């Protein structure tokens, strides 16, 4: 038992080390990239009001942001503050980057969580169904859907849903995460749910594709295994084999895949939030990119890296802790 704990400890130690190296690399690379950008942050910040801003005013802005210093020195200061947990101040929101990310992420979190669980459960059920009844009309239908969704842009699905349900039918609101005029705290749970339903459905319609195809493959594999053939020889029905024998074997890779696909979920959320004007982290990313808010953009890059890393870590952990085949061997956690 003792070795189990040291193993877990070593596992976390190793993962933390990897995360730190990764963050350092991503921070360095992204800083080099943005500092070579031909887009002048002052121009991007001032925007259309460019003509009305005098050179002196521009110098004041540049000085306040420390843009008059060489890139190397700026990087040193930024990295030093970063190590202390200070991500700087967002230019467009005029607020510390961490508090912007925090607030926006909470808004996005509910959207992503709903979409993630919807696509996970529906995709899993569809995959099971398609795999159990291979080459039937049902299977073909599900496969056609999944393959088509894999080549459909998220934002277009969002636009179609928006047109059908918000504009034509008027069932769902056209924009935002809560009714206009209210703040996030004042909106009731149902109002919030009403607003995030359509973006979440958009995300899950697309997200279903991968998990469905993956689960279907695994079911086909499981149905050809010895235990399934043996069960069939004993007179078990297909549904019985899938439900009683294959289900647990198939569930594990599905859960792992779902955790490992957090990066795509994040990317999808950026597009869906843009279509539905949902004020989450995705929209903040786009605004930071278009208006040249470097501290926020870099902060979001680092934050999303940690987000994806956490997803992969969860996938790893679940695999190691849940799967009895790996759990009993000592090489499992390495």
């Amino acid at each position: 038992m003792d070795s189990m704990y040291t193993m877990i400890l070593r596992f976390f130690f190793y993962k933390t080390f990897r995360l730190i190296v990764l963050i350092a690399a991503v921070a360095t690379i992204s800083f080099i990239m943005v500092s070579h950008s031909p887009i002048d942050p002052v121009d991007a910040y001032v925007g259309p009001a460019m003509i009305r801003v005098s050179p002196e005013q521009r110098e004041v802005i540049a000085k306040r942001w420390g843009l008059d210093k060489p890139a190397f020195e700026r990087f040193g200061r930024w990295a030093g503050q970063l190590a202390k947990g200070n991500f700087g101040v967002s230019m467009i929101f005029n607020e510390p980057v961490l508090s912007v990310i925090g607030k926006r992420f909470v808004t996005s979190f509910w959207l992503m969580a709903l979409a993630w669980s919807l696509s996970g459960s529906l995709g899993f059920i569809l995959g099971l169904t398609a795999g159990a009844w291979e080459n039937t009309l049902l299977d073909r239908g599900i496969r056609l859907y999944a393959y088509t969704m894999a080549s459909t842009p998220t934002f277009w699905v969002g636009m179609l849903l928006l047109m059908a349900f918000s504009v034509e039918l008027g069932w769902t609101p056209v924009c935002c995460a809560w009714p206009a005029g209210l703040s996030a705290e004042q909106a009731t749970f149902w109002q919030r749910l009403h607003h995030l339903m359509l973006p979440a459905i958009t995300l899950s319609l697309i997200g279903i594709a991968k998990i469905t195809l993956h689960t279907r493959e695994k079911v086909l594999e499981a149905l050809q295994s010895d235990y399934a053939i043996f069960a069939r020889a004993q007179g078990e029905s297909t549904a019985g084999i899938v439900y009683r024998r294959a289900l647990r074997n198939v569930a594990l890779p599905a859960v792992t895949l779902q955790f490992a696909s957090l990066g795509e979920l994040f990317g999808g959320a950026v597009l869906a939030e843009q279509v539905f004007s949902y004020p989450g982290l995705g929209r903040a990313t786009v605004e930071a990119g278009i208006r040249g808010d470097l501290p926020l953009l870099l902060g979001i890059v680092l934050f999303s890296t940690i987000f994806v890393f956490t997803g992969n870590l969860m996938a790893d952990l679940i695999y190691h802790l849940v799967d009895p085949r790996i759990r009993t061997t000592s090489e499992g956690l390495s």
Partner: protein
Amino acid sequence: MISLTLDRRTRTLTIIFACLILFSGIFIGAWLYGEKGEITNLTMRKLPPGWGLPFGTDWLGRDMFARTLKGLRISLGIGLSAATCSAFIALVLGLAAATLGKTVDLVITWLVDVGLATPHLVLLILISFACGGGAKGIIIAVAASHWPALTRIIRAEVIQLRSSDYIRLSPRLGRNPLWIARHHLLPHVVPQFLVGLLLLFPHAILHAAGLTFLGFGMSPHTPAIGALLAESMRYLSTGMWWLAVAPGLALVVSVKAFDIIGNNVRALLDPRTLRE
């Protein structure tokens, strides 16, 4: 007697051929017809799809069909060139990782991990910002973010090959490493590479379209399909559904055609599924 049931190979070739015709249709159509999409005709504004105007007209009376063709051509062009660059990066890095020794392998494997560490779309936004936007920015962004997965595949393939008996035997027969790379490794990697390249196209095109939709890079003079759809967004509330439906559908069809080509070429090149 001519049988109407084609074997797998013939069917696959027919499908590939049909998809190629579709693409040449888009490119030739955009070349012949695309400029028409820039003519504004205020007497024919906001017409729904009908005879002669299959995709309707927009708020300035421009022919949406012509605009879609041109937008598709731009988006496909961007996606194709980006995916090709990306695949070549993957080929070079994958081969290098598998053949140039342990240190290079460690560095490249780590680079792949770093490349996959940030969500694709965030990375795309970052790189396109770093390049200052524009079509060039989008091509570089897509090319620089899509190589890690294919690098992994090629590296694994070469490492597996190198441990096979006939390649381990080859140096003892007096072959130098270059000869082995040329005559033993390359023929195995080329099909993998081609399929990887083809299957990269849909991703690249979709990501390029997503990036232009978000408003990165494209000026109104190069109306890529994403920018076209972003413009249409503003007119959705007025009930002009055809501005979004038809161009989007055209994008889905062409992306799916690339996906079909990729999967069919894979079936063709894999000896196990060649004739079923």
